[in-house]
């Protein structure tokens, strides 16, 4: 019962935040200097007075601001995000097309970041203040300091251009047709199609962009794991376990790690949310047809309906992930629920 109430509270909170964010986006769009009609319609549509009138009617642009806001919210609830000026397609279907590519990349890179980050963090904490610890700390600071757009160019230069061991930009080599879109995730789709060479090529194309994207989050996860494990190792129950004669490895795996990794979960969740933002750079450099590239192209061509759509989608993702992490956190650690 207590758990259900906690989950319910988080969900209501999520709904309020969503409405708040949508309102914030509405205010932002009202700050756009100039006429919203010229900003949102293409040149050809603007020359047709019928289209202009229909557009004004649909968004209530001849009405007071509060009515415009209600129209906007109504359209959002009906999942109507408007039409992209640049491509002429509904923004929602554009986003639906881009999203799987982004999800595939984000999941691969969060897995890399979590596995390496936790591994480095544990080593660093066990060998505290040793040379290994210093090296791992330097690596994690490097991870959070390196500009991802520059790292992307560097790895492309070395692994693709110089050494020619990994493929260049894109999701698949030019020799392959994209697999039949079932999930939109090329890994799953090529497995469903039963085509091993296609799967191998997909995985090869994922290596460079997901590693570049993982660098920052890996640095954060390493730091958090290290400091939490050090905290837990100095607690009384670990001292008791050690006094009982447990070996160092058993002590860490069975007793310390479980408690130390709870805060790491938050960092992984936040990292996944942030990855979606960091996509813009990596997708642009690796010519990855995802939400980030779509966002960049929309900003560059002042495609306001598309920009708003991207902003809402990414904020939604971020908040949903945060809520899930919050709930998981509450389920794992009772102190959070009652606190």
């Amino acid at each position, binding site marked *: 019962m207590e758990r259900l109430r906690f989950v319910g509270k988080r969900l209501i909170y999520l709904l309020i935040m969503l409405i708040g964010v949508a309102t914030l986006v509405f205010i*932002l769009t009202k700050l756009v200097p100039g006429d919203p009609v010229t900003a949102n319609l293409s040149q050809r549509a603007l020359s047709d007075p019928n289209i202009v009138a229909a557009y004004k009617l649909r968004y209530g642009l001849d009405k007071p601001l509060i009515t415009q806001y209600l129209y906007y919210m109504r359209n959002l609830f009906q999942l109507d995000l408007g039409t992209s000026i640049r491509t002429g397609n509904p923004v929602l279907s554009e986003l639906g097309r881009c999203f799987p590519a982004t999800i595939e990349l984000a999941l691969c890179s969060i897995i890399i970041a979590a596995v390496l980050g936790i591994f480095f963090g544990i080593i660093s904490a066990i060998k505290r203040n040793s040379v290994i610890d210093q090296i791992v700390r330097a690596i994690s600071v490097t991870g959070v*300091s390196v500009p991802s757009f*520059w790292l992307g*160019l560097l790895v492309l*230069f070395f692994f693709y251009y110089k050494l020619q061991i990994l493929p260049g930009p894109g999701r698949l080599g030019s020799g392959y047709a994209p697999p039949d879109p079932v999930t939109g995730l090329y890994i799953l789709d090529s497995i469903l199609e039963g085509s091993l060479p296609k799967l191998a090529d997909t995985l090869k194309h994922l290596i460079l962009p997901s590693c570049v994207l993982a660098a920052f989050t890996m640095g954060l996860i390493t730091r958090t794991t290290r400091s939490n494990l050090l905290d837990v190792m100095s607690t009384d129950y670990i001292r008791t376990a050690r006094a009982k004669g447990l070996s160092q490895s058993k002590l860490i795996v069975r007793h310390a790690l479980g408690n130390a990794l709870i805060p790491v979960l938050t960092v992984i969740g936040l990292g996944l949310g942030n990855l979606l933002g960091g996509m*813009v750079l990596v997708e642009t450099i690796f010519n990855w047809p995802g939400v980030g590239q779509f966002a960049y192209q929309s900003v560059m061509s002042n495609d306001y309906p598309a920009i708003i759509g991207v902003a809402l989608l990414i904020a939604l993702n971020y908040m949903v992930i945060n809520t899930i992490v919050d709930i998981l956190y509450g389920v794992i650690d009772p102190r959070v629920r009652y606190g």
Partner: protein
Amino acid sequence: MGKAIKRLFKSNYLFTAGVIICLFWIAAAILAPVIAPYDPIIQDLTIRLQAPSLSHLFGTDNFGRDIFSRVIYGGRYSLLAGCLTVIIAGAVGTFYGAIAGYVGGPVDNVMMRFSEMILSFPSLILAMIINAVLGSNLFNTMFALVIVAWPTYARLMRSVVLSVKENEYVTASEALGASKLRILMKEVIPNSISSVLIMATTDLGNQILMFSTLSFLGLGSAPPTPEWGMMVSDGVDYFNKFWVAGFPGLAIFTMAIGANFIGDGMRDLLDPKLRKQF
């Protein structure tokens, strides 16, 4: 504090390295006209895209400009933008958070929910949108960075103020009849500010990265300004000429890592659990 910093220099090599790196870039930015061998803006198409050599240490770009001179001048923009963003966002966040924490109740609730809404946008996307809405130039880029950065300071400040305001000296001030504003300015903020200062040092590296990221995306200052992020984006089209993007990127990287080393050191210094070691 002075003694502790001295010990920090001796015991934490990464902190010392960070200070040296940052001092190097500050000196380069100030002395740019003396150090740079060429004008950073004048073009010479006869020597475009030349590899690094003795006459052009870092090579030349697609307009025949000396990349070494441009990198040296570029430090001015990154440092200025990074420092100003941290100072302004820090100041705004400090006051906002202090008011929310000190006043408390529904005011606190509304103020904090508002800042959380801004935090729920990934910072890069929000900065891109603001920049796209306002038009891109150096001032607007910094404005966008400030908008994105201040809520983090506000949250931190609020959490510190919540505990500081329970202190007896605050109660004493109230008993003496001091106004709320006076207590806020004279008691609460000065006693809560240290953690914000630490965060500002750790944040500097982030802001320098964000600034160059926006310039890389074409949302910063206009060409031909020698700005590091923009110089890296020049190199995207000359993929096989590694020096065009390589050296400006290295500059951003060293600057950010220097700032992060300092920030880490400062955090260790003020973390009471770790302080015992010094």
